[in-house]
């Protein structure tokens, strides 16, 4: 939710570790000082002893000045969700009662980049700011930009300061880690898939059932208890008896997205996961506007699912789960059971998959057999793979392509709407094709 404050409960692992690190200079001063004193005694000349005394004194002073008190750092007005490549601002509260004047604060950002800071601070790099502490609380306004979609984190803050002579580095890790969901840039979808069955909540879909609504369904003779406003007076005057209009109620539907992130890393197939997530984010956003209940199943290193729901908190949970998708391989035995449980009637299950794993085809087959309304967007694999080197590899690639084609044809023969999405096509193209397929199929079924 852009602009919302970060929920403290979403912070994890409070850190408060203090450590000191001596510089090479400190070790050199102390060791050199001791050696100088001993050498002065050995050679019977005060010259090395004088130098040793001075070096030792510098080392001791450097040690004394390095002890500084705790600092307090806290983030304020952190957004829970931001769109990728968007800049946003948040506040950083800083307080240190005494100690070193110049401090470096590594804000521990991942998936973000600091752009600018206001106030007494100075930006050193994409994660670190430098400030001069005055002994009074400071409020620093920080501008950051989000990087490609995913889960960004900020904190804990590593506060680094030097002793007055710079001989001792003091490093303190303070604060908590905050999570920010970076969602992909919104894709405008002109066509959306409608579920065949609706549920009982009010929505935009015209239900096949009869009830209170605006869409005309049929005529029937008047029965006791019928609303007089439903009487069709024109038909009734011709028939000589009372007839009433029957209407279709407007209902919403359940949409479950199944995002398949099971690709082998290092093969260039990671871009398929990126496209799947972008498409899923667009679908979630578009269907949420139509008041559908939304569910999500992600298959990557883990099988995670969220049952259909429609509250704001529920949508936030969906986005967080979707942004956590990364390429990986799931345990199929557990995943299959979980998917069957989460993707049940009357949901429309939209599967986003490269269909690279026969287990995925088997899963779709299982869902189809259990009567689940589903549609499959198959992400084109060949276009993102580098050309095979050598005859053996080319042959292997051809066999693999044939195997995938066989799986696709098998699903098509079972009546599963499946469309291949090429990388050059916008996201609306496969959805339009699927919508056309489903309408034709529905007409064919009558």
């Amino acid at each position: 939710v852009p602009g919302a404050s970060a929920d403290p409960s979403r912070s994890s692992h409070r850190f408060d570790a203090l450590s000191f690190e001596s510089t090479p200079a400190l070790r050199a001063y102390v060791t050199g000082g001791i050696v100088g004193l001993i050498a002065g005694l050995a050679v019977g000349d005060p010259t090395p002893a004088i130098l040793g005394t001075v070096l030792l004194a510098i080392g001791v002073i450097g040690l004394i000045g390095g002890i500084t008190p705790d600092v307090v750092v806290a983030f304020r007005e952190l957004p829970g969700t931001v769109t990728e490549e968007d800049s946003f601002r948040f506040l950083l509260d800083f307080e240190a009662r005494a100690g070193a004047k110049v401090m470096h604060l590594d804000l521990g950002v991942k998936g973000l980049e600091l752009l600018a800071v206001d106030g007494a601070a100075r930006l050193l790099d994409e994660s670190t700011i430098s400030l001069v502490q005055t002994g009074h609380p400071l409020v620093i306004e920080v501008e950051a930009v989000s990087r490609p979609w995913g889960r960004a984190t900020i904190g804990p803050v590593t506060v680094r300061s030097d002793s007055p002579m710079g001989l001792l580095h003091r490093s303190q890790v303070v604060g908590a880690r905050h999570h920010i969901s970076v969602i992909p840039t919104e894709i405008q979808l002109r066509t959306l898939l409608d579920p065949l069955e609706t549920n009982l909540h009010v929505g935009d879909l015209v239900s096949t059932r009869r009830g209170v609504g605006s869409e005309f369904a049929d005529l029937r003779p008047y029965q006791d208890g019928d609303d007089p406003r439903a009487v069709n007076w024109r038909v009734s005057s011709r028939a000589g008896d009372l007839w009433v209009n029957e209407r279709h109620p407007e209902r919403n539907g359940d949409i479950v997205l199944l995002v398949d992130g099971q690709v082998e890393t290092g093969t260039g197939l990671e871009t398929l996961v990126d496209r799947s997530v972008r498409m899923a984010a667009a679908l979630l956003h578009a269907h949420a506007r139509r008041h559908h209940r939304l569910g999500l199943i992600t298959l990557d290193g883990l099988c995670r699912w969220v049952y259909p729901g429609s509250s704001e908190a529920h949508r936030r949970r969906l986005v967080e789960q979707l942004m956590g998708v990364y390429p990986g391989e799931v345990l199929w035995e557990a995943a299959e059971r979980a998917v069957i449980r989460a993707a049940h009637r009357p949901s429309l299950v939209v599967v986003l998959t490269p269909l690279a794993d026969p287990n995925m085809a088997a899963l779709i087959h299982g869902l189809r057999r259990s009567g689940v309304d589903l549609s499959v967007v198959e992400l084109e694999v060949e276009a993102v793979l580098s050309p095979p080197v050598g005859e053996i590899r080319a042959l292997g690639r051809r066999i693999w392509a044939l195997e995938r084609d066989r799986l696709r044809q098998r699903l098509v023969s079972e009546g599963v709407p499946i469309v291949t999405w090429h990388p050059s096509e916008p996201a609306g193209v496969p959805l339009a094709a699927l919508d056309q397929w489903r309408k034709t199929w529905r007409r064919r079924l009558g």
Partner: protein
Amino acid sequence: MEEDMAATARLTAAMSVAGAAVLALSVPLSDVSGIAYLIAWAATAVLAAGLILGFRGAVTAATVSLILVLAVVSTFETPSKIPLWAFAGILAFTIETASASFVHRALVPDPLSLIVRILTTPVLVALATQVLVLLLVGAEAAGSLVRVAGMASVVVAAGWVARVWGRSVEGLG
């Protein structure tokens, strides 16, 4: 930014090796100073190798070696080419720049504080060394003016240490 960091580390490393080379060149050339000369240049080589290879102990090794060189040279009749305060100042400069080179391989440099630190500590070390030399000479010569200056220096130094100590204790409270 990484290139800047690397540039800072390289620059300070070169300055450090240059300082060590100056100290090695300050060793007087005489018939008996060969071993001191050798140790001084070995220390410079060790420092250079440590800075290139990222071995932090090289700073300590070079410092100890150069102090041993000073100890050996102090036994010669031929005096060093530079006074003790200059030797101390250049040694501190060598240590500070070498240390800064290591530190700024990992941390983003703050140019102002870096320059201030590299320049301040050698000046302090040189001044303190000269004060101690004067104290020593004063003790030997028993001159009242030198004694007064020496005592004043001790009082000032003690006051400075007490101030730093007081601040750190106040900070802890």
